[in-house]
């Protein structure tokens, strides 16, 4: 259930170009969160909250980790928050990834840029359950790369950069050929990437996590809809998503 909670900042760290990692203390959120859910973050001086994925959870420490890239005024302001400060979130929000698919012995995680964070907690949880994890992570360039080590600890992982300054050059789709077979994929990243992936992996079972500009973040305002292939018209990304089966929505 979504609650309005105060998060206490335990640490703030710049981990890549314009990319901030924040560890936040909150008992309820740390207990309730599942991979793929997000926090709707209230940033001072801003009318609308900002959706940021949960990148990791430590239940014993009662912390959740978020990673965000400085894109505009909201994330810039948030990046200036300091250890010891608190801010309000609504969360944990959204449905999260379906990880109950017992058939899926090996899974492929495909992340693009700031779509990488939710895949980390997902991969960690799946690995704990004994699934084999393969990761393909795309970034703009060498200085944007983060969490490479952490994903490697989960299993084989490939880094791709658009400019080739680190790992393979190009897009995540360029290295999919290198990846051995898998049962199911999970992906999060920019729309063009998700579109390319769902087409390329059409025959595979997969889940994608989508982004859209949000108003309420709780399903009340109909800002964040996505057309579905089923007759249902639109689904709400904030409530029915952000994770959808790759065949469910029209990108």
């Amino acid at each position, binding site marked *: 259930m979504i609650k309005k909670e105060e998060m206490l900042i335990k640490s703030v760290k710049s981990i890549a170009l314009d990319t901030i990692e924040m560890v936040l203390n909150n008992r309820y959120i740390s207990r309730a969160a599942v991979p793929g859910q997000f926090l709707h973050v209230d940033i001072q001086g801003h009318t*609308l909250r900002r959706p940021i994925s949960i990148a990791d959870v430590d239940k014993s420490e009662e912390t959740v980790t978020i990673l965000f890239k400085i894109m505009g005024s909201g994330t810039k302001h948030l990046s200036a928050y300091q250890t010891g400060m608190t801010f309000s979130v609504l969360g944990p929000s959204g449905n999260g990834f379906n990880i109950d698919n017992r058939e899926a012995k090996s899974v492929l995680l495909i992340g693009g840029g700031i779509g990488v964070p939710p895949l980390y907690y997902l991969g960690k949880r799946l690995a704990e359950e004994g699934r084999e994890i393969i990761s393909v992570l795309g970034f703009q360039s060498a200085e944007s790369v983060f969490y490479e080590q952490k994903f490697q600890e989960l299993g084989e992982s490939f880094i791709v950069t658009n400019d080739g300054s680190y790992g393979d050059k190009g897009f995540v789709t360029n290295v999919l050929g290198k990846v051995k077979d898998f049962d199911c994929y999970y992906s999060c990243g920019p729309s063009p990437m998700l579109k390319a992936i769902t087409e390329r992996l059409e025959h595979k079972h997969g889940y994608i996590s989508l982004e859209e500009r949000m108003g309420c973040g709780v399903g009340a*305002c109909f800002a964040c809809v996505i057309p579905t292939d089923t007759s249902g018209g639109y689904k709400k990304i904030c409530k029915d998503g952000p994770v959808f089966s790759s065949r469910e929505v029209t990108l």
Partner: protein
Amino acid sequence: MTNLAVDLPGLKLKNPIMPASGCFGFGREYSEFYDLSKLGAVIMKAATGSERFGNNTPRVAETASGMLNAIGLQNPGVEKIIETEVPYLANYDIPIIANVAGSTIEEYELVAKTFNQTDQVHALELNISCPNVKEGGIQFGTDPDMAANVTKKVKKVSDLPIYVKLSPNVSDIVAMAKAVEAAGADGLTMINTLSGMQIHLPNKHPLLANKTGGLSGPAIKPVAIRMIYEVKQHVSIPVIGMGGISNAEDVLEFLLAGASAVAVGTANFQNPFICPEIIEELPAVLKKYGFNSVQDAIGKGIVV
């Protein structure tokens, strides 16, 4: 004890605070945060004759102390709303106001008439001012004669008190208010959003798929206060005020300007508890400024 109650046509409000149309869905989501019976009333999301899917996304953008929206009246249609949403809201001890929208006068009549089927709706809010309806809805909101016409027609087919929601995108808000009052409106709700636009620099084009959207939030409060203040000097039907309310002081400002009750829209997004929090703070604020009741404060800001 400070008396928060207000009586308006068709609406016995235990307090003057209600969520604004389109910002609260049909209440389900916010009922997970608090007991909706705390509210003075609830205004449902717009209902149209049949299901509408609304505009393409992006549908919202943030602006300085405000936001733009171009949802495009997405809703399941009036029948479905009566069937599934009204009964749900009727579980709570609050008057229900249905927001009526359409692209033609006939559609307004149809929707209004259909609401006669239920006795769980207490009043209609005629949304003649939604700036995002492209098929023609907009002109009702900026032309006094058309606004009067749709008001009259809806009055004829409906058993319920009619509150007409005025658009701020006009030169002469008083003329609009007088026209719909003369046409039989039981009350006014104002203001709807100001028409605005944001251009997204990275792709160089309007950010909203619909290009223009409705500006709401604290940015527009001065426009809302001015319009209510002006209108209340020329009409006698009550006004439900809205536009940028985010705390109990704002509510008092609207009451002083002449509103009898208020609706809270955009502020729900930042703080889902905003309505009950305002209801809780209101008695102290009224008292601080010397009022014993909401009724006492209504219109007291008007200097004649």
